[in-house]
């Protein structure tokens, strides 16, 4: 850890009201991010990783979702740590796009089709930095150049439909960076892109982080991306973090059966063709993610876990310290 954390989440519980019942989409969530650090939040669909990022942003669908417990301490540009769960709507609005910015998954749909790229990038600077139209427009062109878009003056005048997917994602990154945020939340920013474009966008994130020193919360389901970009990783399953640590530690010695299963499920080029020749299916984790409304008692992963014993089904295991900052929510972490 380089400096004091800019984001310190503890005991976070986010609930959704579904058919009169309250369902916890995220619970017991602890995580910290320091400036200049990239934390990858990994998990399958429905594991709660996007809900976590929306909880930080205060963008949960108001009618059904809310943060029920816990605190989200955030140290913004002003330097003082504040609990985001206690801020009112107007206070949160001043932080969004300014101190914390977000890049979304779908570059095709996350830009407004009826405004030019330049206008959309300039908007947060007019709101938060109070730049004039002219200054904000000039700054937008510079940002487009910073994210590697050639001919930025022309691109700024174009509409989203005139840009390719990779270009649009660069534009949304420029938009997120416009107010020089302390924390950047990237929610699967490369998932919708071609593999070659993915690599370029990841490089861009690393370059921008080196230049600007912001913290990044990188939400993804792709372990390859984690290895490429993150310093630390937190693996989520059914709304809880099940393992966390530095990328090197977790990848070398995973201490949770779910992490092991995930890593085994990544097809490697040579191995996969070998298996295909022998007619063996690719390895998967047996079973499927449980419905959050019907979580099993005890460890949520127990029904799919090859290591599960009776003790696993009794109580939700705590996060065990497994050495050098690595933690695992498995009572048998020493054996796996």
């Amino acid at each position, binding site marked *: 850890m380089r400096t004091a954390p800019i984001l310190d989440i503890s005991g976070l519980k986010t609930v959704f009201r579904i058919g009169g019942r309250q369902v916890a989409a995220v619970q017991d969530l602890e995580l910290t991010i320091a400036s200049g650090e990239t934390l990858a939040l990994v998990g399958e669909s429905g594991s709660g990783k996007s809900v976590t990022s929306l909880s930080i*942003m205060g*963008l949960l669908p108001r009618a059904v979702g809310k943060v029920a417990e816990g605190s989200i301490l955030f140290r913004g540009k002003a330097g003082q740590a504040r609990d985001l769960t206690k801020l009112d*709507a107007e206070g949160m*609005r*001043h*932080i*969004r*796009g*300014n101190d914390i*910015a*977000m890049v*979304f998954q*779908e570059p095709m*749909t*996350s*830009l*407004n*089709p*009826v*405004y030019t790229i330049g206008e959309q990038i300039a*908007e*947060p600077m007019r*709101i*938060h930095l109070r730049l004039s139209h002219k200054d904000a427009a000039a700054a937008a062109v510079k940002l487009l150049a910073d994210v590697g878009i050639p001919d930025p003056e022309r691109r700024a005048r174009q*509409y989203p*439909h005139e840009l390719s997917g990779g270009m649009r994602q660069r534009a*949304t990154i420029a*938009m997120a960076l416009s107010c020089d945020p302390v924390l950047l939340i990237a929610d699967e920013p490369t998932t919708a892109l071609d593999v070659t474009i993915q690599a370029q966008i990841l490089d861009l994130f690393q370059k921008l982080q080196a230049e600007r020193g912001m913290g990044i919360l990188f939400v993804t389901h792709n372990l390859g991306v984690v290895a490429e970009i993150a310093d630390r990783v937190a693996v989520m399953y059914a709304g809880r973090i099940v393992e966390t640590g530095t990328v090197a530690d977790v990848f070398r010695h995973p201490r949770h059966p779910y992490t092991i299963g995930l890593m085994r499920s990544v097809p490697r080029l040579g191995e996969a063709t070998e298996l295909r020749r022998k007619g063996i299916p690719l390895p998967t984790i047996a079973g499927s993610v449980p419905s959050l409304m019907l979580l099993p008692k005890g460890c949520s992963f127990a029904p799919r876990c090859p290591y599960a014993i009776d003790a696993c089904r009794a109580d939700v295991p705590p996060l065990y310290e497994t050495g050098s900052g690595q933690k695992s929510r498995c009572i048998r972490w020493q054996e796996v």
Partner: protein
Amino acid sequence: MLPYILRRLATGLLMLVALSMLVFVLLRLAPGDPIDAYVNPNVAMSQAEMDAIRARLGLDQPLPIQYLAWLRAAATGDLGYSIQRNGVRVLPLVLERIGPTILLMAAGLVIAIVIGIGAGILSAVRRNSPTDIGFSVIAFFGISSPAFLTALLGLYLFSVVLRWAPSGGMLTPGAPFSIGDLLAHLVLPACLLSIGHAALIMRYMRASLLEVLNQDYVRTARAKGVKEFWVIMKHAVRNALLPVVTLIGSTIGIAVGGAIFIESVFNWPGMGLLLINAVDTRDYPVIMGATLIIGACVIVVNLLTDIAYAAVDPRIQVA
């Protein structure tokens, strides 16, 4: 842009010819005869005398010859003479009536657009609230009430019972012209004309905005820290307007039909009133001239709608 407009105007011209042909044939298929309305019922007239009048007016010629004669003259801008009003040319007659009709329709549409879009936005933003449900119930009645009914009920309620507005005409007879007087006469018929359109626009706007509010770019706007008011008005409403603009364009043609009822109920000196009188007396040249001009107006308005659509949505290339 210019070639597109010229092409659209050329197809519009063909549509006008087709329209005139259709109206011409339908008129002759309908029972009745202009001479019956022309002659004074108190003066005895022999069959021979009536045939002589028919021959003088060219009504004894075969239909295709009559039509071609009309078309040839119309092409040079000569729409002929009214049969029923001696010696009155059709073109000036129609042109003098078009102003009041455009005024009434434009006023009705502006009211419909303002109310429809405003109520639609409120309904969508406060979805399932009492406001939303109230607007929806009102819109339901607005869509289901026919123009002739709302016109008569409105006339009775606001002019006869409440005496808030004059019961007909465009200006107070004999009084010097004033804008205030014109507006006082305009308000009631324009509002009644707008009811059905406002209701339709409101329903469309509500549905369209609800869909847009779920779009990713609306979430992006919130993530940028845009004020909620501007998230709706700047980022969502402009996108939601796209289908509504098309709807408004296509209802203008329908509005002509509504305007005819309103004009006859309120004795508004417009095309509708002229047309109804002309149909009653089988005044063929006036009917032909009026439908031609109304058709031309609808075609131009539809073209303007498409151009407006391109202005709202940068993805549409008018070409």
